[in-house]
């Protein structure tokens, strides 16, 4: 009896490890290929059939792509994404003051509007936004791109932030009011500081969304000096040959900030991810 149970347990354990290995191979296989290709010498990148392991590691591809241009793209990306994060947090903190007040009339339609904007296809908004930006002289401008990024970041930020702020007990605000703070004072000096982890989660998520974008940058930036890193990646795809080694090296560089953010803020990040969406 106990032998069969032990055996069943053992087969189960083996099954778990096999499944885990398969999952790891599926997830990490492509990433392994990205990293090894970026570290292969050119002759091995273009070997057919491909070599699964480089014969020796070289940083030549990284050296090739670390040009002033790439650095400029990198700086552009960082500026645009940080700017978007700051603007987006400011606007959503403002909006959430009103949207967290119970008994404000017109709150529900605004929330509905926020949600619907989150679900719209961005491609539809792209043409009118492009034409408007063209008229206003906001094409090829980092500021213009920051504003455009709020099209898809602001609704998400408002929605997530509201969830975090609503989780702070109402009594704390009431206590602050009794201590003589105004309604906004209580919000700004008591509720928002208490929701700091939530605010951080929203900020990180906004940065992440902006860092992921490619479509807006593609349409809004044509001037090479204003390009962000995703466009720099695409520019490496020539019409005849693709320098895969360099392409993978730039890709790895593009991954670094998001990995750093993720490693140091994984908890906030996951909180931001699961909090807003899974309320339903």
């Amino acid at each position: 009896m106990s032998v069969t149970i032990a055996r069943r347990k053992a087969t189960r354990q083996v099954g778990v490890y096999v499944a885990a290995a398969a999952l790891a191979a599926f997830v990490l296989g492509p990433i392994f290929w990205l990293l090894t290709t970026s570290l292969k010498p050119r002759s091995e990148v273009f070997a057919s059939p491909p070599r699964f392991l480089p014969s020796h590691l070289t940083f030549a591809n990284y050296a090739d792509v670390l040009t002033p241009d790439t650095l400029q793209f990198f700086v552009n990306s960082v500026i645009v994404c940080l700017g978007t994060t700051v603007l987006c947090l400011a606007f959503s903190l403002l909006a959430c003051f009103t949207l967290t007040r119970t008994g404000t009339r017109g709150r529900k339609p605004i929330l509905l509007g926020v949600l619907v904007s989150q679900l719209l296809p961005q491609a539809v908004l792209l043409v009118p936004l492009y034409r408007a930006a063209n008229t206003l002289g906001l094409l090829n401008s980092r500021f213009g791109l920051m504003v455009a990024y709020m099209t898809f970041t602001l609704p998400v930020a408002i929605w997530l932030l509201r969830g975090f702020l609503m989780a702070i007990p109402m009594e704390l605000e009431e206590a602050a009011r009794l201590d003589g703070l105004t309604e906004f004072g209580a919000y700004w000096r008591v509720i928002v500081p208490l929701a700091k982890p939530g605010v951080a989660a929203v900020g990180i998520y906004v940065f992440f969304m902006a860092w992921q974008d490619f479509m807006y940058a593609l349409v809004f930036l044509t001037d090479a000096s204003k390009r962000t890193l995703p466009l720099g990646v695409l520019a490496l795809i020539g019409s005849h040959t693709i320098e895969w080694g360099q392409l993978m090296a730039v890709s790895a560089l593009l991954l670094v900030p998001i990995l750093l953010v993720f490693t140091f803020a994984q908890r906030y990040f996951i909180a931001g991810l699961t909090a807003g969406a899974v309320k339903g």
Partner: protein
Amino acid sequence: MPPTVRNADVSMSVAERPAPSQAPAQAVAKEKRRHNRQTALRVLCIVPPVALLGALVAYPLANAVYLSFTKSSFINPAPTFTGLSNYTAILTSDTFLTVLKNSVIWTIAVVAAQFVLGLASAILLSQKFKGRLVLRSVVILPWIMPGVIAGVLWKLLYDPYLGPVNALANGLGLVNGNPAWLGQASTALAAVVVAAIWKGFPLSTIMYMAAYQGVPNELREAARSDGANAWQVFRHVTLPAMAPTIRTTVLLTTVWTFNYFDLVYVMTAGGPGTSTEIFPTYIYREAFQNVRYGFAGAYGVISVVLLSIFTVVYLRQLNKSGGLD
């Protein structure tokens, strides 16, 4: 002297009031001023964000609808009104049928696979085994990777001569020679779908892992002691408890997948021919390569209408669970 005067008193007309003394009247006025100031501040705070969303979302949407009734070209970019002609041209064209069919296949295949893979990996990562914590933290990697990178990476993986896909498939005896998965119309869509599944499923994993671990263990124990086997416990206890998360996640991934642009654009740009063209990529092509804003607008409006089915279902579910209160 009454200690405080509440808002209810403010709404009373003066005539109804039994001759108030000086002090409460002042308090009433003060309270009213305070209340007005409070309302004004609430309005003041909501106006800038709402105005911004109006300019960034509502105006472009309305403008896209307007453009869909007009015609413009590269040579003559000023839109002229043409009524429904864009819609009749689109709805009777073969390209529209292709785009619609591709979008439906793309969305259903990607969402279904992400659901199955997400659920399976969530359950796996909730079991006890060595290396679980490491696997849990790396499983998210494809999802946090920008779509451009995932696109170029999978383009390399699928490369007929340089990529490992053909090398592996040849080694396993699955194919002969070097098929160009992205280069032929018969396999391109399936190849992009696989890449999209890889890129997106970790989100479902994270969601379902949280939901799975949120199911109280006592419930499972109780079912087990009633004689339920592992499958029955899963089917009748775990799954129903996870249902709200599953519904939301599937609805959201459906909307996101339908709208997803980066991966397809980078991997195939809708080609070869129109074999991987979905709504977002085709809208982009019409607007920025063919410079036909009217057609792009009409395709956009059609895609919004199609999506609104899912949006309405999502909003109703959210409203029912009190998420909008």
